[in-house]
């Protein structure tokens, strides 16, 4: 059964600090060679989606650069394409304030896209999920809306999720938003399946009734009034959800766990990304690398431990990189030491610098800076 995909590219922008200063959340680099949107887009491509719309609000130049013609996803076909859906501006609404309102910009796209069902998703979740199975479950349930969700325990006290569902024997007891959670409850993954015609009606209804927020104004309201029939599809593999800088940092380092990598990098369901034609990584005679994920094009002369290195990174002699996320094109100068850092793209750390953050507060060095 054909599905149409809609991706929100920038829902959590404001919580990601410096990383989204010059880009949308969807194009934040992740996991050594990817951007966040690569995962949801690859999941859609691997699940046979043919029409995918990406809703953007601001800063979408880097997103467009990353996607190009989408040939890497095999989505540059006559009947398989990705559409960037910039803000819907005909006077009354220009930049939208909520995800439900933002869907207004997707109406024309939805009308033309072929497929009976729609999956809408945020771009902040890294996982490898087969949406066809979720769709089968949705159809079988006969519900109007399927919420894809998972069970987790919070890493920090008072951590919250945008949609938390209390359920017993398949029956939904309560739905809350921005609530605390643990693994006795289900957390919405920001992925929803419904009929295209249902979503089209919802968008029109939301527009004239001033509804902004998909979770609050539609899901929660629908549950409380009993007007909406909800099906829950529980996804049981690793789910890395980046809702702020700290979770983003931790999620990158979680890729160092073998079980997480096995859940996410599945050989017959690859995660695609823009090809950059880098050479393989060179490890010099004095290089020490341990428990790290290292992409192509790097030159390692120093020490790299418990870290994620993106493409084309120079680690010079005597330099030490610990528990850090280092993005594309950065260089770590001789004798420098970094620990608990997020180093954005094209940063230069000159000789002999020391940057040490804390596990709960990693230091972020902005794109292009020279330290």
């Amino acid at each position: 059964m054909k599905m149409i995909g809609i991706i929100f590219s920038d829902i959590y922008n404001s919580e990601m600090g410096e990383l989204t200063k010059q880009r949308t959340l969807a194009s934040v680099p992740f996991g050594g060679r990817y951007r966040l949107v690569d995962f949801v887009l690859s999941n859609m491509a691997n699940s046979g989606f043919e029409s995918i719309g990406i809703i953007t609000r601001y800063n979408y130049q880097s997103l467009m650069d990353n996607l190009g013609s989408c040939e890497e996803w095999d989505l540059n076909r006559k009947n398989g394409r990705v559409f960037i859906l910039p803000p819907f501006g005909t006077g009354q609404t220009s930049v939208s304030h909520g995800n439900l309102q933002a869907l207004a910009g997707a109406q024309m796209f939805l009308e033309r896209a072929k497929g009976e069902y729609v999956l809408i998703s945020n771009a902040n979740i890294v996982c490898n999920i087969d949406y066809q199975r979720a769709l089968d479950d949705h159809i079988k349930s006969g519900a109007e809306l399927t919420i894809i969700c998972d069970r987790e325990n919070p890493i920090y006290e008072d951590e919250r999720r945008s949609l938390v569902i209390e359920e017993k024997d398949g029956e939904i007891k309560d739905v809350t938003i921005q609530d605390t959670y643990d693994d006795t409850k289900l957390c919405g993954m920001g992925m929803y399946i419904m009929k295209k015609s249902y979503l089209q009606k919802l968008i029109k209804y939301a527009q004239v009734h001033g509804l902004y927020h998909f979770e609050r104004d539609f899901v929660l309201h629908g549950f409380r009034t009993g007007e909406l029939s909800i099906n829950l599809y529980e996804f049981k593999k690793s789910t890395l959800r980046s809702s702020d800088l700290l979770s983003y940092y931790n999620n990158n380092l979680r890729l160092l766990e073998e079980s997480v990598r096995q859940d996410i990098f599945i050989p017959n369901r690859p995660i695609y990304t823009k090809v950059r034609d880098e050479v393989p990584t060179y490890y010099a005679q004095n290089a020490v690398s341990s428990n790290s994920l290292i992409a192509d094009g790097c030159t390692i002369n120093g020490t790299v431990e418990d870290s994620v290195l993106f493409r084309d990174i120079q680690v010079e002699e005597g330099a030490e990189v610990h528990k850090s996320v280092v993005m594309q094109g950065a260089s770590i100068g001789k004798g420098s030491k970094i620990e608990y850092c997020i180093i954005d793209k094209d940063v230069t750390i000159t000789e002999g610098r020391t940057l040490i953050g804390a596990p709960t507060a990693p230091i972020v060095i902005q794109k292009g800076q020279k330290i």
Partner: protein
Amino acid sequence: MLERRKECIAMLLAGGQGSRLKVLTSDVAKPAVSFGGKYRIIDFPLSNCVNSGIDTVGILTQYKPLELNSYVGNGQPWGLNRNFGGVSILPPYAQADKSEWYKGTANAIYQNIHFIDMYNPEYVLILSGDHIYKMDYSKMLAFHKERNADCTIAVYDVPWEETSRFGIVNANPDGMIYEFEEKPKNAKSNHASMGIYIFNWKVLRKYLTEDEADPNSSNDFGKNILPNMLHDEQRLFAYVFDGYWKDVGTLDSLWEANMDIINPKVPLELKDPDFRIYARNYAKAPSYIDPKASVKNSMVSEGCVIRGTVENSIISAGCVVEEGAVVKNTVIMPESRVEKDAKIIYAIIGENTVVHENAEVGKEPAECPAVWGLSVVGSHRVIEEGQVIGPKEVV
């Protein structure tokens, strides 16, 4: 109507079996053999073309073309998916009056005269698919035009003691060629032909047609076309190329060229952003280096998991080196696995091969100087637990 044409197109001879690469070419043509961790040999001439502004390439295939065809595809990884031009795979085909295989290098081009005519080029660049080098052909073309040549042959200065292994080109100081010598005992020059030629298409077309009509010809560029042109006093020039160049037609030279990548003294720089070598990409995750791993003076491509010791080696995409395994001075081609405590020293391991626990492949030269040589394991092989593959063995 304005006629669409190309100034220069390239014809890449990729039909050879490469029998001297033995087990590595039992399933694939030589140009499709893996190189340097993430490349295949054909990536070098194809990338050279693109980096030299040549956007039309005909690839002549004959031997085991499947892998090569699917690798090249529509040419997109090299930017050769063009509306007019781009990459075309040219296998031998049946014609109205006869059908035959490519009999020789010249015959292969002869059989594709229609393809070349379609682009109506001024010049045709002839390349072979078994060399590792980075070369800007546009400089060679400029040289060709400057000299008003009919044919320009790229030459590489080999050490004098090796001249007897090469086709040697004797030329005047201005580059004009007056003699060819095939593997001479006492060479007059150390200009070895690189098998890279630029011809004026009109002239080459005439010689190809005449050569085809000659029943005694072996239809080969080096043996027939070039000597005939020289005999007729056509303007042939030698263009000296002074970058890195290596014929990887043998197992030893293929291994050496791989090792050259990690040798800082050898000028084979793959990391030049202005002259990239492009390759088809298989969407692999970054490589994971385990706390138990030790990786020294080596190249590791994407999608690998390294838990053992890797020294002076090239580990290609998607390989696994398990705990306790030792890989030294070795080239491991894509998707192969070296299991626990296996030992691989001075070897080439083909693609999709598994070396099971405690197996041993190869030896240090010092351990057996008299009988030492590279050990080579082909593609899709399984080396059993505890099996020993000695030096010089090819399996």
